[in-house]
């Protein structure tokens, strides 16, 4: 621990920037424990999450319903800024939730749909079947998850849709290098496992 006035902000001045070291009042909440005395908060949290997992299917069903409703509105009214954003947010929520709630293939399909909505130069020009197939796939994966061959089928389906969507996006963005770069760039998510 710092011995010199830990409650004060330290500032070092440089020609074009400042380096500011604020006090860290949180550090006093970090303490050392003997290995044999330590409980495992991560294991405790994983256990709590497992208890919560009984609700995941219902949660995914409600997210899927929201996505379906968002696209149904677009089919009825055509694309406008508001319903396009709602479709993106619904797909984006499915993506984040599905990955966390044990539906990785649904997350892959939702991610693919998000990429279409984000990178298509003209959303009205996207083949409606391409969007509809993504939504149908998410519904099927969420609803049929308990079938014995569902995981294998869901993996194959999600990979195929992603492949078709990427092919489409590369084609329609062939003259838009900034989008092409984003489409082809690998994820940089660190592995926490």
């Amino acid at each position, binding site marked *: 621990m710092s011995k010199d006035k830990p409650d004060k902000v330290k500032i*070092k*001045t*440089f*020609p*074009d*920037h*400042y*380096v*500011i*070291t*604020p006090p*860290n*009042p*949180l*550090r006093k*909440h*970090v*303490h*050392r*424990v*003997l*290995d044999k005395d*330590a409980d495992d*908060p*991560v294991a*405790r*949290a*994983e*256990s*709590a*999450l497992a208890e*919560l997992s009984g609700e995941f299917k219902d*949660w995914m069903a409600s*997210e899927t319903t929201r996505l379906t409703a968002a696209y149904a509105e677009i089919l009825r009214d055509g694309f406008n800024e508001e319903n396009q*954003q709602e479709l993106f*947010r619904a797909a*984006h*929520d499915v*993506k*984040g*939730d599905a*990955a*966390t*709630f044990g539906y*990785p293939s649904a*997350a892959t399909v939702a*991610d693919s749909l*998000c990429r279409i909505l984000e990178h298509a130069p003209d959303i009205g020009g996207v083949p409606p079947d391409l969007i509809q197939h993504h939504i149908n796939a998410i519904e099927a994966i969420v609803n049929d998850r308990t079938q014995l061959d569902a995981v294998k089928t869901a993996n194959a389906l999600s990979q195929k849709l992603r492949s078709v969507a990427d092919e489409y996006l590369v084609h329609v963005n062939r003259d838009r290098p900034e989008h092409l770069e*984003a489409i082809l*760039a690998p*994820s*940089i*998510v660190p592995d*926490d*496992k």
Partner: protein
Amino acid sequence: MFRIDYNKLRFLVCDDNPHMRRVLRTLLHSFGAREVNESEDGATALEMYSHYVPDIVITDWSMPIFDGLELAQMIRQPDSKGNPFAPIIMLTGHSDKRRVTVARDAGVTEFLAKPISAKGLYQRILNVVANPRPFIKTKTYFGPDRRRNTSVAYIGPERRGSGEVEVMQQPSLMDKARSNV
């Protein structure tokens, strides 16, 4: 082995998705946290930030009207009356480099991509508590030092003007703690 007294920490969780808030609340309570305030949009989160003065902010990126990026930018106002230094953990489904760079440049301290795992969240919190980076203020940026590592092999141009010590050494507590999680 290092552990955090979670029951001493105050959290602010901001996510428009109630399911994700429930997951985060469950994880934080399981870690031992008692004070977890929740908001479903950035504007309310900013009000709660001033009112509850949380130690750590965990926010989603994509939210309607006032998103997590704007929340981070509002918190990182060097001349504000509130605390501009609170750690901000950005939780998001966006994982491409461009998005991560934008979040970093808004002053986000840590970035946690979905799917959320107990271990991933725990490590990010341990990191911001045990090993905070100094803040950098320039004409265009105010936030945690975006240089996490110093590389003697770096051969590119030095973008920061020098005057005295250019790089501040970080304590090694985090490395020790990380190896024991």
